[in-house]
């Protein structure tokens, strides 16, 4: 026995630990299946999917275009402020600031900006640009770090700093950086659609209404359009056309409501203050009873909402992480051409496209009908979506794996010859994805799963911004903590390609 233990490598250990943790989380989670007869609703849904109605949605082309234009402008905005920050990212404060910004879901950024800018396109674009910029800063920094030192070493001795940087560093990373921007644009399309859920004029606006109100013919049509939009990016998003798109996007933005500086001021000076401090104009008004009230407020928010919310968020995210692992390992094997044959692998690739394009919200929605309102639908939704995304990125690598002469085209051959080569990268992607999973639990809050997102959403809908903001701060803290731990884990044993995450 001890002999075989010495063969348990680093990644096997990590996998086992991940599964052990997830199992514990799963046991403590609410995964009760409560559903008596979902069939009549499901039948309506399938009927809708069979006969999608592409004409049910008003202003459909406009919504389609706005989805693209918000995504484009959002990514551009993110690049403008995020790319230069990548050069300063080694500064601890900048890194922490970016982590805070990243940790808050686009939807919540949009809800904040909604208070300041109202239903203006600026709200949607900033809600994408802000967290995306913070992500760009971090990823570009990571990519720059990974660029080989050897080029700089062989440059002529008296080369000036600018030339040295551009020829020795930037030129190395341009390919992965461009690939990453392309990938983020796909993500931005999804984000842009999701922002429709709270009122931006994108596809999500109609998609959410259609599903929520049971107009499945319309919903199915929108979903098909959205998947087609994402699946065909390579055809319509040519580098040369981007400039034209950007100009068009700027000119066709919905009319910008004027921004009122007083609204910004009101938000900062009033809205975000806890109830006890509202109306306090100078410090002398801060008497004992107010302070007491403040403490009680903080206590009740923290213990009744933040702590339970964090717990559920963590349970959900960790269980979903292990499930994503399972989904991604399985699907990436199925999609491997030299294992399952050309036809089957193409079918799986199509499935991957569908799974990664559909917003988790829709999955959770369907599973909730099938399985009842526990945490299980949310877990499955997260696992399918993220697992498919990781599998999609993994097969990009496995397609390029050169098989040895002993490869036999069977599952054992795959496990010897391919899996060991792609596994570290897959795990790297999985752990990076954890941050995203954690953030996306927010969406399920809006569906009623009691994650932190649920309480934040309640805060906004009850017009208690201070509560919502305090909870967002807790979210940020949780994310930063997780980020630190995952970095620690990853540092030990990866030189994975960071290009796509």
């Amino acid at each position, binding site marked *: 026995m001890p002999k075989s233990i010495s063969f348990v490598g680093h990644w096997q250990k990590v996998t086992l630990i991940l599964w052990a943790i997830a199992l514990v989380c799963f046991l403590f989670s609410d995964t009760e299946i409560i559903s008596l007869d979902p069939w009549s609703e499901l039948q309506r849904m399938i009927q809708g999917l069979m006969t999608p109605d592409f004409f049910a949605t008003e202003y459909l082309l406009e919504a389609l275009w706005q989805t693209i234009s918000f995504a484009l402008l959002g990514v551009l905005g993110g690049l403008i402020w995020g790319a230069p920050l990548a050069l300063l990212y080694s500064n601890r404060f900048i890194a922490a600031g970016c982590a805070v910004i990243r940790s808050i879901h686009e939807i919540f950024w949009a809800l904040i900006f909604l208070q300041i800018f109202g239903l203006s396109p600026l709200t949607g674009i900033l809600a994408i640009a802000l967290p995306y910029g913070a992500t760009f800063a971090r990823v570009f920094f990571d990519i720059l770090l990974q660029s*080989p030192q050897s080029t700089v070493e062989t440059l*002529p001795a008296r080369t000036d700093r600018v030339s040295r940087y551009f020829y020795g560093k930037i030129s190395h990373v341009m390919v992965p950086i461009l690939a990453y921007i392309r990938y983020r644009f796909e993500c931005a399309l999804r984000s842009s659609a999701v922002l429709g859920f709270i009122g931006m004029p994108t596809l999500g606006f109609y998609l959410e209404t259609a599903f929520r109100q049971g107009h499945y013919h319309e919903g199915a049509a929108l979903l098909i359009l959205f998947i087609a939009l994402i699946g065909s990016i390579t055809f319509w998003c040519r580098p040369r056309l981007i400039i034209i798109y950007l100009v068009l996007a700027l000119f066709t933005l919905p009319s910008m409501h004027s921004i009122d500086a007083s609204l910004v001021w009101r938000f900062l000076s009033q809205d975000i203050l806890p109830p006890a401090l509202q109306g306090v104009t100078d410090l002398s008004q801060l008497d004992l009873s107010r302070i007491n009230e403040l403490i009680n407020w903080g206590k009740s928010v923290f213990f009744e909402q933040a702590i339970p919310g964090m717990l559920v968020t963590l349970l959900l995210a960790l269980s979903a992480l292990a499930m994503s692992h399972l989904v991604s390992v399985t699907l990436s094997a199925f999609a491997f051409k030299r294992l399952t044959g050309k036809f089957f692998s193409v079918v799986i690739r199509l499935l991957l496209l569908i799974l990664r394009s559909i917003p988790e919200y829709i999955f959770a929605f369907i599973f909730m009908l099938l399985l009842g309102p526990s945490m299980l639908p949310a877990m499955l939704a997260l696992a399918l979506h993220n697992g498919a995304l990781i599998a999609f990125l993994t097969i990009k690598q496995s397609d390029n794996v050169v098989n040895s002469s002993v490869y036999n085209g069977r599952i054992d051959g795959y496990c010897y010859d391919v899996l060991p080569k792609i596994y570290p990268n897959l795990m790297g992607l999985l752990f990076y994805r954890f941050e995203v999973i954690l953030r996306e639990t927010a969406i399920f809050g809006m569906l009623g799963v009691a994650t932190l997102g649920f309480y934040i959403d309640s805060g906004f809908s009850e017009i208690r911004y201070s509560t919502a903001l305090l909870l967002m701060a807790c979210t940020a803290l949780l994310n930063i903590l997780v980020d630190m731990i995952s970095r620690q884990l990853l540092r030990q044993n990866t030189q994975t390609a960071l290009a796509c995450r």
Partner: protein
Amino acid sequence: MVKIDNLTLKYADKLAIRQLSLSIASGEKVAIIGPSGSGKSTLLSHLYSLLKERAAFCSQKQGLVDGLSTYHNVYMGALSRHHWTYNLINLIVPFSTPLAEVEALCHQLSLDVPMSKVLSKLSGGQRQRVALARALYQQQATFIGDEPFSALDPLMAEQLLTMVLAGHSTCIIALHDKSGALRHFDRILGLRNGELCLDVTQDALTPELIDNFYSPETLALVSNA
């Protein structure tokens, strides 16, 4: 030109060079031989760090940029000769003068690929010649090379070696093999386990000496020591 006295160096926490003393005069053509792991690369990069201002270094790591064209990869040897604005513009639109120079240089190296070809599309042998071309394009008086011909066939290797030797007054080149190439050098150094075991001039070099240097018994002897 350069003098080392009692040098000890570490590479990746292992002792790579032990108490080595050496001096190389200007105009000398020096070959360094020795089995892998003997400390050749460590010694060469140390020599380069001492001679930085006057020498071109063709490292075993090559330091090529996969995403750039062949031309740009070679042009990088000339970065220090131009202002940075010139370099940046050249990165987007190549200037014709250096382009012609680089093309001619590549032709000399029998590297007849389109200058715009992206480096990642080149073969191993072609990549090595790009790295060599970059070092030559630095136009320095001294050439330091770390097995710069290892991926080439012997005929081509010898041809390029004579070119390098003719183009630089001082050459310090590590070679992996004990081929006939050594006869082009004035002086041969043999490294083993970080120690200088052989230091002879061309006249004193005999096949027995080399065989003895590489012989398994002495190898075993040293690695036991």
